[in-house]
């Protein structure tokens, strides 16, 4: 695999740090008038999401990571793996394990498109779209006409996630949910 020198560092570059795939978020050059130049680099570990800073002497190089971010369609879960298919008409499938799927499993809906990060062709993370539409499979009965007042109740969605919803929501309703906060947005009934 190729190497990147500090002079090639920039946001978005995928590099291998301590044998883990990482993405450079920010690269700041520190250069005293008299003294060694350094690159202070903010990195995100693409497997566990950890963000931290590491300082490199300018001129050092790091190994490039074979990381590909790709859109994939969610197919199904067999309980151990979550199966996705490429959207490039290749019908190629990959199976993500629990380490890769993490919280994204709360927002899965068949045929929806997810961003899958592949490292050496194996999935290491799955990111749902910012908003998903999921059907309510369980909640207390709705209070008819109660659309204005406050108050919330829990509702279980088809993906298994539990979100706080207004009292008027019923089983069978399709809800738009912000996957970044887990917050209910509105009803998206057909």
């Amino acid at each position, binding site marked *: 695999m190729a190497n990147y020198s500090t*002079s090639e560092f920039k946001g978005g570059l995928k590099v291998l*740090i*301590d044998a883990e795939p990482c993405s450079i978020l920010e690269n*700041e*050059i*520190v*250069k*005293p*008038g*008299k*003294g*060694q*130049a*350094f690159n*202070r680099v903010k990195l995100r570990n693409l497997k566990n999401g950890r963000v*931290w*800073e*590491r*300082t*490199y*002497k300018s001129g*050092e190089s790091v190994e490039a990571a074979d990381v590909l971010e790709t859109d994939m369609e969610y197919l199904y879960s067999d309980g151990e793996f979550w199966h996705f298919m490429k959207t490039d008409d290749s019908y190629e499938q990959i199976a993500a394990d629990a380490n890769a799927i993490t919280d994204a499993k709360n927002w899965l809906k068949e045929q929806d498109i997810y961003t899958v990060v592949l490292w050496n062709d194996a999935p290491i993370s799955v990111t749902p779209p910012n908003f998903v539409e999921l059907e309510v499979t369980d909640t207390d009965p709705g209070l008819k006409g109660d659309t204005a007042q406050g108050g919330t109740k829990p509702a279980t969605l088809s993906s298994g996630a539990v979100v706080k919803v207004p009292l008027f929501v019923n089983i069978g309703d399709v809800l738009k949910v912000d996957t970044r906060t887990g917050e209910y947005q509105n009803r998206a009934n057909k």
Partner: protein
Amino acid sequence: MDNWKPTAQLESLQIRAELLIKIRQFFFERNVLEVETPLLARTTATDVHIQSLEVLSVDSVLDTKFYLQTSPEFAMKRMLSAGSGAIYQICKAFRQGEVSKIHNPEFTMLEWYQPGYSQSDLIDEVESLISAVLPIQAIPKLSYREVFQQQLGFDPHNISFKKLNSFAAEHIDVGAQQLSQTDLLQLLMDAIVVPHLPKNIFVYDFPVDQCALAAIKKDSDGQEVAKRFELFCSGMELANGYYELTDSNEQESRFEADKNKRQELGLPEYPLDSKLIAALDYGLPNCAGVALGVDRLCMLAAGYTEISKVISFTTDKT
């Protein structure tokens, strides 16, 4: 297409022009002579951390390699040896590869020398200049040892490499890189010490390994220190000054040491400035000198945190 436009904010051009007038007024009142020295010269700074831009001349008279000056220091010292007395210069300086939010490869430098001044005399004069051009009064002054002791609790002149290394590892992640004692001190200075110091501060008496072209003397505790100071404003290095090294033998051996280190690191080697050595041999008066970044001064005056806002056209936009 608006990439033809200046990178500078137009109001900063006005601020720069006013600063230059105030600076010239300041030195005029103090009888310091404004001079000009070549930007293009056969020799250049040999400091391993400063890279010069080379200019190839195919001129039949001057068929040689020239360097854009990284500072006017050598030529000004030759003037001082010739008996110029106090001199200052506002000029462009060039440093290869220095590009960041606060660096441009071509920048404006104010450099001045005061024969008969000590390090602390010159610190006071820098303070007077800053007060004359920026709304800043009474800048605190602390030694390098004091700032490290205050912020990190150890004496930077007397810490073992092992201790320093493990101390640095607690604060800064450098992976598996092998860094020198000086690298570690400079990293801690930048990442931990400076951000916790007063907004504007002079730091003086540097470790001897960071002497550059400063004289080395014993401080009041008997510790050998480099008579070098820096002014930090809003976390930026604004000025760097020395009680100047005048010993030609010592100067020659520092040149040699730089040359060896450049070879070791595979960096371009520059011809040693034998005319500077000759001038020091003849006699550089005891003096103190300082270089101050004029673009950064403009940033402070105009309230910008990016150098591109005060440079008419940064190198990448030419």
